Each structure stands twice: as structure tokens, then as C-alpha cells.
């Protein structure tokens, strides 16, 4: 179901003025991991100069260090999905098939941070991030209760809606929005004043003004994907100039802060699921795919993941 890594190429299309500042037309591609089934959840750990990522269907959390290679962090992962780092540089994971949010402690043990909302089991936390105040934000669509090869021990849905949740630094959980029929990727603008959330069903990215108390204002449409190409908005991250990068129909789209596409990074024959910026200059773009993880060089720095 995925293309050959021997022929993986990255090219760009849909170029709008200024695209040259984002990426070269045919940037080099380096394969980091093959023989994984479904790559997801990439996060660059700047302190230890390593990349975390997950293989959902393979049930593994991996890390990769340049010059060293791959190492298993957790297996079985109960189909874990998105990852991020908290203020203490601990890995925080959207549990997906396991239907929890959990964290790796300093001693290597794993702690569950959330497994229910008002007494009902969560849907399946998909993607996750930690704001600079330490609060944890995650999307909770139902795919980890249904998707082929991605489910855990309980497939029953209990929540009526598919919220975006926030866990405050004191541990208190709240609903950020219930606007979505399949919330997936999420990220903040560089100043954390805007929250972007995409919807894989409606193929839309919505933007919200973030209030100091952790709630958000009314949704506005940031970009609506149209057209016949396969793929849905999935992983999403911001660069330092506020451009929004989103794995979406036909490749990775880069939108300017108004939502307008600047360029699309195509990975013909491959299915990107998520992205992360990394490296010392935050100009490596790590791309998780169905079947592989690769990286390529870009010309603009991503917002540091911690």
C-alpha cells in the first residue's frame, strides 16, 4: 500500500509567490526508518538530539538518533499515536487504541494522565501538544476504536462528541471545543495566541483565538481542502513565521498565516501522516508515512517542539 523507498522523491507544486523561501524544488530525502507499518507521532527532542515517532499498527514507540539509529522506547504501545514533550522534556503520548493520554517518567515508567471524561472512557486520543504553560491539548476522534489494525482491548465508544480536550497544569480537564466530527492534527501559532485544529472528515482547518484561561473563542475557517485527490488533513505544525504545515490531500501543504497555500510538498506514491521540525536549526522536516519515516531539508525553521 506504500511506495518503494528506493524511488522516494520529494517535489513541490502549487507554488505561490515566496515559496522559494520555504523549500528547494527537489530537496534531498533521507530514509530514517523502513519496515514500519504505520508511522505517526514524530517529535524532535532537542535536548537529546533524537526523534521520537510511533508505529501505530506495529504497536511501537521508537526513537532515532542521527549516527546511532533506531531503538524501541515502548512495545507494545497499544497502538499509540501522537507524541510531544512537556516542560520537563518528558514524552507525552496520545494513546489512540489504548484510549489514554500517558507520559514517560524520568525513571522510564509510564503514567496515565487521563483515561476518561466525566467518568466515561475517552474516545481515542489522536494528536497532542503541550503549551508553554504546561497545559496538555489533545484531539479525541473515534478512529482508534474502529480503524483496521489500530484498536486496543475495548472498541466501544461511550462519549457523544469528539472533543478537543485540555488538561490544565493542575490536572483539571476541560473541553476546548466540540465543533468537530473528526478532530485530528492540532498546533499553536508561534505566539500561542491561535490554536489550529483540523478535521479529517470535513477536510477543513479551523482557527481559534486562545484566551488566557485556556478556553478558546469562536471557530473560523482557516482553510477548506477541496478537490478529488486522496488524503485528509492529519498532522499539523507551525513554522517560526506562523505558516501552517499540514499533511493533507496530495502531500504536505504549507499555508501562510491567512490560510492561503504557499506551496505543496508532494511525496508521490507515499502517504504522509504527520510531520515534525527538528535538528539543531529546526530546518529538518521529519515526515512519518504509511511504511516509513524520512527527513528532508527545508529553508525555514519550525517552531521548536520544546
Amino acid at each position, binding site marked *: 500500500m506504500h511506495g518503494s523507498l528506493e524511488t522516494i522523491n520529494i517535489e513541490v507544486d502549487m507554488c505561490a509567490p515566496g515559496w522559494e523561501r520555504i523549500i528547494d524544488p527537489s530537496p534531498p530525502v533521507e530514509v530514517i526508518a523502513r519496515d514500519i*507499518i504505520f508511522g505517526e507521532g514524530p517529535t524532535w527532542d532537542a535536548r537529546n538530539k533524537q526523534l521520537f515517532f510511533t508505529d501505530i499498527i506495529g504497536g511501537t514507540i521508537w526513537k532515532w538518533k542521527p549516527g546511532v539509529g533506531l531503538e524501541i522506547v515502548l512495545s507494545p504501545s497499544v497502538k499509540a499515536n501522537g507524541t510531544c514533550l512537556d516542560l520537563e522534556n518528558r514524552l507525552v503520548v496520545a494513546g489512540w487504541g489504548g484510549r489514554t493520554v500517558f507520559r514517560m517518567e524520568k525513571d522510564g515508567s509510564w503514567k496515565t494522565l487521563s483515561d476518561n471524561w466525566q467518568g466515561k472512557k475517552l474516545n481515542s486520543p489522536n494528536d497532542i501538544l503541550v503549551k508553554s504553560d504546561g497545559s496538555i491539548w489533545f484531539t479525541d476522534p473515534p478512529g482508534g476504536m*474502529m*480503524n*483496521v489494525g489500530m*484498536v486496543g482491548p475495548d472498541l*466501544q*465508544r461511550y462519549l457523544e462528541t469528539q472533543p478537543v480536550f485540555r488538561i490544565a497544569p493542575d490536572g483539571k480537564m476541560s473541553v476546548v471545543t466540540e465543533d468537530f466530527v473528526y478532530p485530528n492534527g492540532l498546533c499553536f501559532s508561534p505566539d500561542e495566541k491561535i490554536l489550529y485544529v483540523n478535521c479529517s472528515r470535513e477536510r477543513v482547518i479551523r482557527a481559534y483565538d486562545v484566551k488566557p484561561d485556556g478556553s478558546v473563542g469562536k471557530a473560523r475557517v482557516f482553510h477548506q481542502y477541496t478537490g478529488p485527490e486522496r488524503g485528509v488533513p492529519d498532522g499539523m505544525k507551525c513554522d517560526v513565521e506562523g505558516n501552517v504545515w499540514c499533511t493533507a490531500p496530495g502531500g504536505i501543504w504549507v499555508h501562510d498565516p491567512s490560510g492561503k497555500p504557499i506551496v505543496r510538498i508532494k511525496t508521490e506514491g507515499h502517504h504522509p*501522516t504527520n510531520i515534525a521540525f527538528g535538528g539543531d536549526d529546526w530546518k529538518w522536516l521529519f515526515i512519518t508515512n504509511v511504511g516509513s519515516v524520512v527527513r528532508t531539508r527545508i529553508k525555514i525553521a519550525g517552531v521548536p517542539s520544546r
Partner: protein
Amino acid sequence: MAWNFELVAGPFKGRTGGLAWDGKGMLFSAVAEERVLRFDPATGKADNFRRWTGRVNGIAIAKDGSVFGAQEGGRRVVQFMTDGSTAPTEEMIEGAHHNQPVDVILDKKGRVFFADAYNSQAPYGPPAYPFLPHASVLRLDNWGPRYWSLSRVTHDTVGPRAILLSADEKTLYVADGDSERGDVCQLHAYPLNEHGSVGHRKMLLNFAFPERGIEGMCLDSEGNIIACMGWTKGGSPPAVVVISPGGTIVETHPAPADSPMRVAFGDADLGSLYLTAGDGGLYRAKGIGRRGLKR
């Protein structure tokens, strides 16, 4: 004797599918609405049994009260547990992921047989696993809590739609062929041994394309097969037929709606016949002169 079907629930969105009598009520699948409902003949009302079923079609009730469901959308057989949770079963066979189960039955030993068909509607999630090169009847054997193994039972089917055990469980009836995919539809009887494996089949019925063939079956107290077949697109019209154990159609009754899906006996002494159909209804015919087999 004419069979008078009346609509007792629905119509629901899309087709209705699997049926299973729990002793006092009839469970049935509203496949596209992703619900399993329970019709209570005492009140005449249908309420949710489970929501968010992932397009469960065929259903079967186990001795412990749990319900197995053939989940077309998730490419798996699920088990609706009595505590309200839903457990998966084994999805991999010889390193590959099976297809889209459409029908499921249990034998007296608690083994789970399911018809692992292809389906015109894509499953949930990104396509990480190709479909099997064959569509077969598969068997789940339980080895303890949450511990299943999966084995292939038939090696000569093209797209099994409905499966049924004879009263002595020594014959496995398989309605094979998906007319919506252009298959030729047939009804076969396989000798079934104690290990859950089959011998050489005997063809009972052969439908010429574009006949729809058989979609759902149950057994009456005399060992006859009651089957749903036909549609208005071509060939014989929508009907419920009675098939002798030897494979002769001995009665034909008009179905109450196009593309009848499944049939099952229910009510007191299993004296009524329930039917689901392509129009999304749940139908019932009382006093048809036949009763269901008590297993």
C-alpha cells in the same frame, strides 16, 4: 399458506442486516446507522442495544449473553460484552489481515464461524492492509480470555454471504457469491467434522447471473433452510424460500421489500419469522405454519 409480513420497526437508514433472538426480544442490525437494536414484542418498540457498532451486520448470541458481531467497517469480528464494552477477536490469519466479515454464527462448543466476504463499502481507516486473495469462511477458536486463533475453513468460496449449521452441526451451509460484485451465487452444503474443518462440498443451488442468490438463512424445526433471496434488478424477484435439506426449493413467498437480507425465528415457541431488508425495515410474519429450530 400466505406469509403476511408486517413492518414492526424502522425503516432505518440503509439496509437492516443481522438478526438474533435472545429469548424475549429480537436483536437486529441497522448496519448503516451503526446500531444494533432490540425489538421487544411485548411492547412493540425497538431500542438501542449498542451504538457506534462500526457497521456490524451479522450477529450471534453466546451462552454467556455476549453478542458476536460481523463488523464490516472495521474488518473484524467483535464481541459485545455484557458489561457494555466491546472486545476484538483475532484479525490476522497467516500474517495477513482478513476481509470484511458479513455473517457470524456459533456452534455448541462456542466456536465462532464467520463469512469473510469482500464489501463494496471501504473499511475504516487508511488502507494499511490489502485484502486476502480469497474470501472464505473462517473459524475463531477461543483459548482463554481475549485469546483467539483464526483458521480457514473453506478453500473454494468466492464471497460467502451467509452461513448456517444444521441441527446436528454436521453440515455447514454456505451461501456463496456476492451478486453486487458480479459473482455467480450458489448454495453449498459442507460436511463439518468435530475439529471444525470441512470436507468436499455438495452444491444445493446454482443461481444464474444476475440472480442475487441467498443473503441470509435460518433453520426451521424440521431442518429446512429458510432463506432470503432475489431482487428487482434481475432474475427471480425478492422472496423468502423454504429449501429442503436436500436442496429443493419447496416453498416461495414474496418478500415484503426489495433485497431481503436476513431471516430468524422469534416470539413464543419461535413461532414468528422476522426479516430484515434493503429498505431498512424490520418485518415479522406470524403464524406461518413453521417454527424455528431450538438449539
